[in-house]
């Protein structure tokens, strides 16, 4: 294909250059009823799963239909979404923080019609294109990261684990029968781009083998001080090795000190971590972000390792489902997953969810560890 110029002139990069203009102003993209009632909303109702009604002080009503979506979507799919927005919602739409899509329509009938339409759209492979739900006391869409689709440090895939999990908990996406909202998040390495550290349920990719050192390339390719400085535990130090009679400047890794974060690899491509046997998933639970009733809280590791089982990660989804169902059956109304576990006690949580407790689950990472050990005679048998 011939190169098509945009108008950019590589010989004069500054000619007519536009920069530092930031995002478009959101005011350009508000549906009329939203613009009119901006800052003057009175209350909202969830009419049924995935359908919201917001009432303004003016008496105006905005009906929202929310549907799930993969986060990884194609141009073709976005255009389909645009067609729906044009046909049903005046040419506007919105994405939620958790990758759902929302359309605003003017009355309840239009909302229910749109819901039926969205639920009827399918991919040729059989999955739904726009499943409606994700509201109220249920599971909503999963925020996640790149995984094997696009990152260099993942210990698992993101899109696949999310698809497998959402299929397993789909009933709770399309309904509102849990005690409180359950927020699931996924990040594919310890860097946690997906910020899984405050989620009701978190799926986290973990490595378990220290970096492999490619000495020859390291000498050619890497800035050794950067790799040394990148390591949060100080496990990397400069070193020299003899290979086939040649001396290479390289690094040595104190393996017992490695926390498997991959930071050195980011600085130095000669230190890969990825390993089919070593990598897998840790599950964390009980975090939250809202300040409702209890304070925001961190997620806690309850399963230290589950092997990668692509394409559907059956062990992982089984454990998630078990935790979710146990919580659903046992928690009080309004009680978030972590608040439930705190109330019944974590020893009881492990018992009820039939999870094994192991030494890996006792924190030994720096200062915060101490505050998680039990310092009271109060515990349950």
């Amino acid at each position, binding site marked *: 294909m011939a190169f098509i110029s945009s108008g950019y002139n590589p010989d004069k990069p500054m000619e007519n250059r536009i920069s530092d203009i930031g995002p478009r102003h959101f005011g350009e993209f508000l549906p009329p009823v939203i613009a009119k009632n901006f800052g003057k909303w009175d209350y909202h109702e969830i009419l049924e799963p995935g359908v919201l009604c917001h009432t303004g002080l003016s008496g105006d009503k905005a009906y929202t239909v929310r549907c799930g979506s993969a986060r990884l979507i194609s*141009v073709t799919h976005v255009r389909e979404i645009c067609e729906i927005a044009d046909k049903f919602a005046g040419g506007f739409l919105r994405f939620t923080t958790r990758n759902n899509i929302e359309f605003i329509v003017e009355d309840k009938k239009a909302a229910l019609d749109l819901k039926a339409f969205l639920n009827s759209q399918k991919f040729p492979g059989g999955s739904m294109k726009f499943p409606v739900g994700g509201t109220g006391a249920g599971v909503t869409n999963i925020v996640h990261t790149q995984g094997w689709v696009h990152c260099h440090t993942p210990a698992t895939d993101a899109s696949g684990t999310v698809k497998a999990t959402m299929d397993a908990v789909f009933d709770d996406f399309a309904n509102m029968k849990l005690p409180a909202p359950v927020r699931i998040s996924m990040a594919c390495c310890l860097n946690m781009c997906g910020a899984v550290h405050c989620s009701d349920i978190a799926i986290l990719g973990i490595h378990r083998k220290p970096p492999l050192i490619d000495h020859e390339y390291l000498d050619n390719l890497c800035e050794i001080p950067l790799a040394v400085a990148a390591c949060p535990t100080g496990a990397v130090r400069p070193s020299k090795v003899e290979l086939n009679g040649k001396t290479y400047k390289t690094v040595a890794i104190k393996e017992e000190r490695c926390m498997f974060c991959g930071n050195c690899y980011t600085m130095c491509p000669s230190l890969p971590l990825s390993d089919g046997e070593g990598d897998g998933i840790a599950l964390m639970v009980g975090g939250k972000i809202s300040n409702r009733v209890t304070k925001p809280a961190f997620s806690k590791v309850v399963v230290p390792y589950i092997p990668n089982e692509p394409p559907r990660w059956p062990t992982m989804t089984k454990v998630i489902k078990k935790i979710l169902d146990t919580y659903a059956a046992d928690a009080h109304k309004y009680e978030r997953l972590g608040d439930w576990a705190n109330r019944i006690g974590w020893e009881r949580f492990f018992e009820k969810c039939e999870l094994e407790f192991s030494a890996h689950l006792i924190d030994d990472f720096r200062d915060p560890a101490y505050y998680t050990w039990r310092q009271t005679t109060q515990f349950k048998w």
Partner: protein
Amino acid sequence: MAKHKTPLLDQLESGPWPSFVSDIKQEAASRAKNEKGVQYQVAVDCPEDLLGVLEMSYTDGETHWKHGGIVGVFGYGGGVIGRYCDQPQMFPGVAHFHTVRVAQPMGMWYSTEFLRGIMDIWDLRGSGLTNMHGATGDIVLLGTSTPQLEEIFWELTHNMNVDLGGSGSNLRTPASCMGMSRCQYACYDAQELCYNLTQEYQDELHRPAFPYKFKFKFDGCPNGCVAAIARSDLGFLGTFKGPIKINQEAVAAYVGGEIAPNAGAHAGRDWGKFDIQKEVVDLCPSKCISYEGGKLVMDHKECVRCMHCINTMPQALRIGDERGVSIFCGAKAPILDGPQMGSLLVPFIEVNKDDDYQAIKDVVESVWDWWMEEGKNRERIGETMKRLGFAALADAAGIAADPRHVQEPRHNPYIFWKAEDVEGGWDRDLAEFRKRHQR
């Protein structure tokens, strides 16, 4: 006919949840057909090669992407993430597969006209695959080659009037909740403040000068829909001082079962009749509500604005007046000392658009000055705070100590007194001392 066999990925096409595999296949088919006669500027079959490389990862359990290398557009230090495949001979279509981050509109509202414009650029100059949206909030355009970067930037800025987002050791693309656009809980205009600060700090966003990345997030209220308290170096959470406004008739309607509690969020299960004592009064964390003689009574001064009662009875209770934001500092997910929650730095500050949010900008800039002076390379501000102490940050930001800054006072008396704290300072006269105390 698919270019690569993908038996593992094919198993992700079934089940109710939207299948990204089916979608990538749909894109691959559409590019192969090319009904509109697009002069694709990167490999036509890159969606197929992406499936191929992904299938390989599904088979061997290892990633096949190499990181980075420095790629970008002239004059910017971020916004593009370099990415190369480690099996370029097998998957030439994705050999170079860089990500472009595009600044999203606050609250992620779109017109189809704008979205289509972005998609047209990405059809022509990219892989045809996107993330809506990346975890920071940007529109993520996934996969293009180096020669396309300046062209994409040119078309984004000239034709779409939109800029790249941030990456690297700089201000990352700020994000806000939908706030006032559709939420009655918004205590301030989160979208407008987010937009204003984003424009004000374009230089910090595009040209890395910080020790490490820095994130702003804006939640309209303590419900925290964009997770400002957990995911931003400076998190702005709406709050209020005035009493929660009570509509007693609506309270009665909730008690009488005429209005579903929590806006109907629990409708999928029979939880029994709404019990205001159990569901509101007893759950109030500050125990400042009572329900007596058919009236809801609140000791407003004791309320900690957890939002529970308001969320539970949105038609009866409304946020109080005298609204503003609380600013939290230092949240991050990984790694050094483990996850950190934002710590309350400014309990209350006015959100004043009329003076262009000057008070808030003063806080932001003094926090940055301190961090750029004291922070080590690749140290998030939350870590600098831990290393040097909260008081050092508050002092630098010109914020007086307040009991609201702590959950409880310190557990030890190891106070780092300074000479100026102590009468007479630290210079003592040994001769004088020896007059009082023999050797």
